[in-house]
């Protein structure tokens, strides 16, 4: 990507507080399904609107408004959301209602809010924003897909400010299916022990992270987003070559640290092993899913983390996967995959250049 795109505002909601970045002890969970931490939603959303909103919508609007506020943007030129599963809580409510009433009397609210694009739509309604509004659902590459659109929008349409985010919520039926399908670990474990577990599955969670991107750099900008790529099918042996090609395309000789979506699933963590022991063996390696769990748009949390690291020039120890550190983090690569599919690469650098 030739254009300059800056991250000017960030916000996230996850099972951890932001103070985990300030080296405060992380929250520990003994369950494999992690809810997000409750927020003061009423400070950003009217109570009469709030009453109908599921977790994803609340988290999405809250983060979107915080990110825009930080970037001092009142009206974005586009709203892009990546969500793998959309508003699952309302989908389940609607389907259960259908079964219970034998397809008779169905509540309109859960039907209206059961679609994937509810979050992006509700953000637009809240902001009264009639600009380009798009939702991307591509499993674990949903957020990356939204980011690619953001890059294209800024490059091709001379758009100035874009709101982009990733959000996914947990719901009882769907996590039940994930458990049956061995996506969630059979045994309950402490989240901080995730990387030591040698069993199939992971811990899942609900998270949201939103970013105010702009073609204009500010004194308070977090980072410059360089490029994003999605690779749908990939063998572990091909990963190094594809990453090298991605870096070469962007004329980046080497990165200072990598943020990996390692999730403790012994069937698929070999993708991360491949580059941890290979191309990035001499680089600082970070992980985050032992703190915030996994879901289809959790790579947005990784972008939040990378943005904080580049702005504050600090790497919190709790995220470190190896003993190597980096005194001056300037270029960061984020790599994530889920079940060996939908591999996402996000490349960003400091704004200091």
């Amino acid at each position: 990507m030739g254009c300059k795109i800056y991250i000017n505002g960030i916000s996230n909601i996850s099972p951890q507080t932001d103070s985990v970045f300030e080296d405060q002890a992380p929250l520990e969970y003994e369950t494999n399904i992690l809810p997000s931490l409750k927020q003061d939603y009423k400070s950003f959303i009217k109570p009469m609107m709030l009453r109908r909103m599921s977790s994803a919508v609340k988290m999405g609007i809250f983060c979107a408004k915080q990110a825009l506020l930080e970037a001092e943007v009142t009206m974005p030129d586009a709203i892009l959301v990546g969500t793998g599963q959309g508003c699952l809580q309302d989908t389940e409510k609607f389907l259960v209602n259908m079964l219970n009433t034998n397809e008779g009397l169905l509540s309109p609210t859960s039907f209206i809010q059961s679609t994937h694009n509810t979050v992006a739509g509700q953000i637009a309604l809240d902001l009264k924003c009639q600009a380009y509004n798009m939702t991307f659902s591509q499993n674990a590459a949903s957020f990356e897909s939204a980011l690619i659109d953001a890059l294209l929008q800024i490059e091709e349409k001379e758009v100035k400010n874009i709101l982009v985010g990733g959000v996914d919520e947990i719901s009882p039926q769907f996590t039940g299916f994930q458990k049956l399908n061995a996506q969630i670990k059979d045994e309950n474990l402490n989240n901080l022990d995730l990387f030591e577990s040698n069993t199939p599955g992971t811990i899942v969670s609900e998270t949201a992270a939103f970013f105010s991107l702009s073609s204009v750099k500010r004194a308070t900008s977090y980072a410059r987003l360089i490029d994003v790529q999605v690779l749908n099918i990939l063998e572990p042996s091909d990963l190094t070559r594809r990453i090298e090609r991605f870096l070469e395309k962007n004329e980046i000789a080497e990165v200072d640290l990598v943020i990996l979506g390692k999730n403790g699933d012994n069937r698929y963590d070999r993708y991360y092993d491949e580059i941890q022991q290979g191309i990035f063996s001499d680089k600082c390696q970070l992980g985050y899913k032992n703190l915030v769990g996994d879901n289809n748009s959790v790579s947005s949390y990784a972008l939040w983390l990378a943005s904080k690291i580049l702005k504050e020039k600090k790497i919190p120890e709790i995220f470190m996967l190896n003993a190597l550190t980096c005194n001056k983090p300037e270029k960061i690569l984020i790599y994530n995959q889920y079940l060996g599919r939908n591999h996402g690469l996000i490349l960003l650098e400091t704004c200091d250049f």
Partner: protein
Amino acid sequence: MSDLHTELKKSIIEQLNLEDMEVNEIENDEHLFGDGLGLDSIDALELIVLLEKDYGIKLTDPNQGKEIFSSINSMVDFIEKNRTI
């Protein structure tokens, strides 16, 4: 306040997710829409479903809605005259 008034208020609070609201906070003659309770068009659809599910009343004329859903009193009055269950 009759049992039906209380029952209806409880159902409305539950069905419309009026979090943090108690039965005694809804006045019997308070407007449900607009300046009163502040309900909107989606709530109107929920109330139509509620009438059919809980009282077996099927609204056939949409123009009736404005009058019936004016207040708790008007809804109770309509339910007492038309309920089938």
